[in-house]
């Protein structure tokens, strides 16, 4: 018993420490060569100028590498944990916020906001609102056939997703190519390149969204038994569904607001988590957060060091994600799945 508690503590500490270590490590990596000792000197200076070091080094560490890494951690955690939550609530191991149309709904909302309201903070509101609308539409479209919700939900999501993407493209068509278009293009191309400390405000809704999922994580197990059984087990299913879907949508759309749409993380990270700790959402939710954060930091670091151009992060997550997804489908047929 005592040993168990100790193990538990070590695991918890590792989950929190892993992304922090990753953030720290990425400060040393990049196209610009900075000596290890110099990185430490800059870090301990607390942002003040360091004697004998060019100011470039401090800018690169504090303005280019650090905000990206921190944002990567939050965004990765948000996307992964939302994916896990959606999978549980919709009883479908194949869904994530991309498949349910949340990301494209959010991108649509943001384009709407940029074109008609000039962008800014209203982006967050609109992308959240349309993220929610997209999930609801996917869910309703999936229910038209009703009998096999596992498949029709995915189908509904694909339809809704392309519907919103079409409108986003339409907005691109009518947008002013000099002032509005670059902002719009950003929504469909996931990247952490333009993240600065100003965008850190999005961490608040991400944190709230993730918190909502985290505190109700065990209840996701019960919800995944299906509406009727969960109700018979004593759960107010509607309240928890709304709460968890709301949290997941809030976290996803806020992430989309600062990074654009980044695919695959919400799908593959929860499944890697399942292989490591099993299906119990009490453990799966925290490990998805931690893994998602580490994975996105790693992918983002790769995207900025592989070439002197930035490789779009969606390409990297897909290159890693697609073979994994195929492997997963194979596994889903047999093995631990039924």
């Amino acid at each position, binding site marked *: 018993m005592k040993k168990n508690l100790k193990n538990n503590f070590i695991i918890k500490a590792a989950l929190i420490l892993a992304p922090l270590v990753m953030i720290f490590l990425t400060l040393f990596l990049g196209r610009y060569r900075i000596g290890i000792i110099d990185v430490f000197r800059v870090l301990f200076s607390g942002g003040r100028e360091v004697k004998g070091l060019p100011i470039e080094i401090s800018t690169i560490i504090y303005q280019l590498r650090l905000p990206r890494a921190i944002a990567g951690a939050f965004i990765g955690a948000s996307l992964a944990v939302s994916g896990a939550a959606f999978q549980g609530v919709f*009883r479908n191991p194949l869904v994530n916020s991309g498949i349910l149309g949340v990301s494209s709904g959010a991108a649509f909302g943001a384009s709407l906001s940029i074109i008609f309201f000039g962008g800014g903070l209203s982006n967050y509101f609109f992308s959240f609102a349309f993220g929610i609308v997209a999930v609801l539409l996917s869910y309703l479209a999936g229910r038209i056939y009703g009998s096999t919700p596992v498949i029709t939900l995915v189908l509904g999501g694909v339809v809704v997703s392309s519907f919103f993407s079409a409108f986003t493209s339409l907005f691109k068509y009518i947008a002013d190519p000099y002032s509005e278009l670059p902002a719009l293009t950003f929504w469909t191309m996931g990247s952490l390149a333009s993240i600065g400390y100003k965008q850190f405000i999005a961490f608040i809704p991400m944190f709230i969204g993730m918190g909502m999922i985290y505190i109700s994580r065990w209840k996701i197990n019960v919800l995944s*038994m299906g509406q009727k*059984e969960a109700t*018979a087990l*004593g759960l*107010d299913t509607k309240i928890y569904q709304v709460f968890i879907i709301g949290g997941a949508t809030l976290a996803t759309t806020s992430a989309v607001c600062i990074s654009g749409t980044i695919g695959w993380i919400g799908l593959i990270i929860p499944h890697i988590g399942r292989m490591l700790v099993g299906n119990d959402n009490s453990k799966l939710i925290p490990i998805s957060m931690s893994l998602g954060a580490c994975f996105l930091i790693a992918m983002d670091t790769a995207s900025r060091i592989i070439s002197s151009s930035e490789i779009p992060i969606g390409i990297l997550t897909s290159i890693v994600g697609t073979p994994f997804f195929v492997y997963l489908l194979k596994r889903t047929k047999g093995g631990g799945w*039924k």
Partner: protein
Amino acid sequence: MEEILKVSNLSFSYPSKNIFSEVSFSLRKGEIICLMGPNGCGKTTLLDNIMAILHYDKGEITLMGKPIYNYKRREIAQNIAYVPQIHNVVFPYTVEQVVMMGRTAHLGYFGEPGPKDIEYCNKAIEKVGISHLAKKPYSQLSGGEVKLVLLARALSQNSPLIVMDEPTTNLDFKNILLFLETIVDLSKKENISILMATHSPEHAFFFQSKGIVVKAALMSNGIIKDFGEPEKVISEENIKTVYGVNAKINTEYTENNHKIRSITLLGTI
């Protein structure tokens, strides 16, 4: 004996279709009611009303003497547990994790199971005799074993009443008997009341032969056609009118001289 559940003059209909009307019966502590009737006669809908998953139009359901609408969702679940007919496995949770979900009704809004819940859960697993499977993913178990897992989940709910919807569907002889014997055991040791929808009249006879107070309810065309002692309800006459089947009821004696009835199907009318 204490009355656990009382259903009086209950009616329910969907907008386009009347499902049942004027249904009345009551269930006392330690008692088993076998609810029978042809496919589509409204058994499952009746059970859903009793668990307050569906809301009846007329009549009343009282649970432990109080109208069921005075209960909160988790209070209902503290008093009624449920074993479903079909359970789709989506995520391969371990047996322990599935049984633990039975503790939902005893946890706070954002609570997680604690040491006390783990104890309840382990006891429930022990009671249905599947301790050796506790760490296994329940997706890898046989149909009979999954039913026992779901029964253990209902037990960990620690409720005085368990509602079962055709729990022996898809099970072979041995697994059916294993399941029924577990129920007999529980009924005797724990004094749990059971409301069970079933297609097999033999189940009622089996429970009776084990010395448990059993009642049979025969549902047909949205009403309770007959309710009472199994001998009275499961008669050749009733089976003929309700199912449209000619059958013969036999009486036999087991080794220890217990009387047991059985039914032989002769053909459709």
